[in-house]
């Protein structure tokens, strides 16, 4: 069952691409592998992008880590080594603590909404309803909208005196007038609604593709075994979709760590940093206060945080390719 899951579901994923270099290994092994003609060409063809990635990504990541260990906290570059002082300062910063709290709020809210609603929408679309193409387009359309536009639109929708609250008032809930994203404590949850509105369609597309990849026989077999709709989802479909769910978690998780655009337009850091994020803190520290080393420290922290999320994902991907 498990094996089958990987074969059937991950085919649409990275496997198709990643598998191709592995093909050459089945050829004759008279010369060292990397000297074989095709391999050499492959290396040569890849070399420019490897060099570019090495320079523009990894070198600068290294540079950022280096800057986080010097005392460059004004507009005059100062490369005096201070060790972990910037890191200690960051970890003891009140704003940083709030940002971590916000990250948890955002990640949980955003991930939860995207995965739950994405899955529900995909399951509904998969029931061969009429006008599926139309609904699919409607659901995925927000993903084509930029984060900036989403932020501006939702900023007005969540404006306490003009937006959604007017609908509540019209419906007779005059006392239910939440302040949405400008709530000093829970503003972040409101932001996740806007962000999930944008991203759910994409997660839905992932799930829909995976659902289409589940062989009909499995569902039929489950039906013969007497499984109802609920049991089929619980014991057959949802377990088969786990790789996609894993992908969705990584995607939404990465998004949570680096979220910036939507917040920047919705209200910036908000009252009492209610909607502040690490990325926004980094931007303000670097380009607002010219504390380059502090900004580099925050960036480095964000890279480490992302690595915790992405490395297990990449390892599992590699496992699948080798299998």
């Amino acid at each position, binding site marked *: 069952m498990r094996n089958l899951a990987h074969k059937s579901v991950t085919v649409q994923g990275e496997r198709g691409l990643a598998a191709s270099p592995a093909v050459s290994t089945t050829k004759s092994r008279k010369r060292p592998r990397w000297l074989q*003609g095709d391999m050499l*060409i492959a290396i*040569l*063809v890849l*070399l*420019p*992008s490897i*060099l*570019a990635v090495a*320079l*523009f990504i990894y070198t600068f990541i290294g540079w950022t880590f280096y800057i986080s260990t010097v005392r460059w*906290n*004004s*507009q*005059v570059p100062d490369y005096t080594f201070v060790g972990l002082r910037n890191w200690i300062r960051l970890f003891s910063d009140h*704003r940083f603590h709030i940002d971590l709290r916000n990250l948890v709020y955002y990640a949980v809210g955003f991930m939860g909404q995207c995965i739950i609603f994405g899955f529900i929408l995909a399951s509904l679309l998969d029931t061969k309803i009429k006008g599926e193409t139309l609904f699919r387009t409607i659901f995925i359309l927000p993903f084509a909208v930029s984060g900036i536009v989403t932020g501006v639109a939702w900023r007005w929708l969540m*404006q*306490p*005196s003009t937006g959604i609250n007017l609908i509540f008032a019209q419906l007779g809930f005059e006392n239910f007038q939440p*302040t*949405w994203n*400008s709530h*000093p404590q829970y503003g972040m949850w409101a932001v996740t609604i806007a962000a999930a509105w944008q991203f759910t369609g994409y997660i839905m597309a992932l799930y829909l593709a995976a659902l289409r990849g589940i062989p009909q026989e499995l569902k039929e077999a489950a039906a013969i075994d007497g499984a109802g709709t609920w049991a089929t989802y619980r014991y057959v479909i949802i377990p088969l979709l786990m790789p996609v769910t894993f992908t969705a978690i990584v995607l939404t998780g990465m998004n949570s760590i680096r979220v910036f655009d939507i917040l920047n337009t919705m*209200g*910036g*850091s*908000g*009252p*009492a940093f209610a909607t502040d994020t690490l990325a926004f803190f980094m*931007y*303000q520290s670097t*380009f*607002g*206060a*010219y*504390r380059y080393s502090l900004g580099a420290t925050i960036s480095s922290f964000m890279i480490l945080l992302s690595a915790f999320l992405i490395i297990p994902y990449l390892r599992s991907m590699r496992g699948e390719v080798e299998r």
Partner: protein
Amino acid sequence: MSQAMNRRQFLKASALGASAALLAACAAPAAPAAPAAPAAPAAPAAGEAAGAGSLEIFSWWTSGGEVEALNALYEIYKARYPGVEILNAALAGGAGQGGNMKALLETRMIGGQPPDSFQVHLGRELIDSHVIPGRMEPLDWLYEEEGFNDVFPQELIDIASYDGSPWSVPVNIHRSNVMWVRTDKLSVVGAEVPKTWDQFFEVAEELKAAGINALAVAENEPNFSGHVFECILIGTMTPDAYRGLFDGSTPWTDPGVTAALEILNRAYDYANPDYLSTSWGDINDRYVADDGPAMMIMGDWTHGVLMSKQFTNYSWAPAPDTEGIFLVLSDSFGLPKGAPHRENAINFLRICGSREGQDAFNPIKGSIPARTDPDLSVYDEYLLSAMEDFKTNTLLPSIQHGAAAKQSFVLDYAIAINILATTRNVAQAQAALVQAAEDAEFGA
């Protein structure tokens, strides 16, 4: 077989070609950025005759009024130097910390490719951001040549100066400590415009009984309260003590700071209750709405904003307890080292500081000239009263608008006041201010 060989050779050749091209492309942008010392690009400009070439001006003036005012300066420039092509590099959003324009300007300055001149708040914003890092030219000689020393007030030149030299030419003056009063709201309770905070709270209490919010506040993110707070602070401290806050001679633990924080904390009780949900951009609309607040402490650009909304039921007064004090902020233009068209830039600075230039710019911008000898016939009633105060009052630098302290402090300062707005805890806010001053190393 031979076909396959050809294909391989072709692939090899194209791979090598591609990598070579890419390496060349990588090298290209890196080269001018890294080694180009700020002085280097000046070389071509030296040989260039004045009145030819181009002039690139950076600013954050993109909205109505601002654009026309800047264009008025450009018109004068074009009339005098018709051969020069003006590149108006205006980017929206720059007044606050980390605004787009400032971020882009910073990358250009660090990269050694400055514009010919750029808009910057007079005072520490320019000094700490660009003068101390050694990216600007001192302008003493220009001040002497153009006689600026005689026409700008000495206190203003002091704000513009560092290390004995002025570093930019102020084109306008705005006043920070103005209280805007809705006469229709005050007449409901039959109150006079409050002159002190004690009177303010009396009026506020009466207004509250009549169901009217006394003070407009927009603190959905740090900034607006920072402006209100500086207007309170200059009333609870002597001018010298206030100036001392930024050179280390007055500690931020001073009782005057505490008193100001307590006043602001009390004032929040009379503010629009959704002040934590209102943004600075929306506050003017809230203020002129039928159920809007009665008073607002905001800079005198508000005059132009209210006029543009065809709102007339208002008058103005200095913020409570600040009669006789003029809290200054000023937009100015400086001369970066290595400006590509240095002569053109200098000519632009001459126009910025000239009587003709300032009288063309300011009536449109809704600000007063930095010069004390303007043509009074072109200014309206508010601006004339502001000019009178500018001549006679004590001038103090604004914190929130970059005149008094460096940008990193302004950010921390606004955050500290936001702590007060959200926690309503005076001690906590003051501790944050003390920490901010420590980080800013005032007087060090």
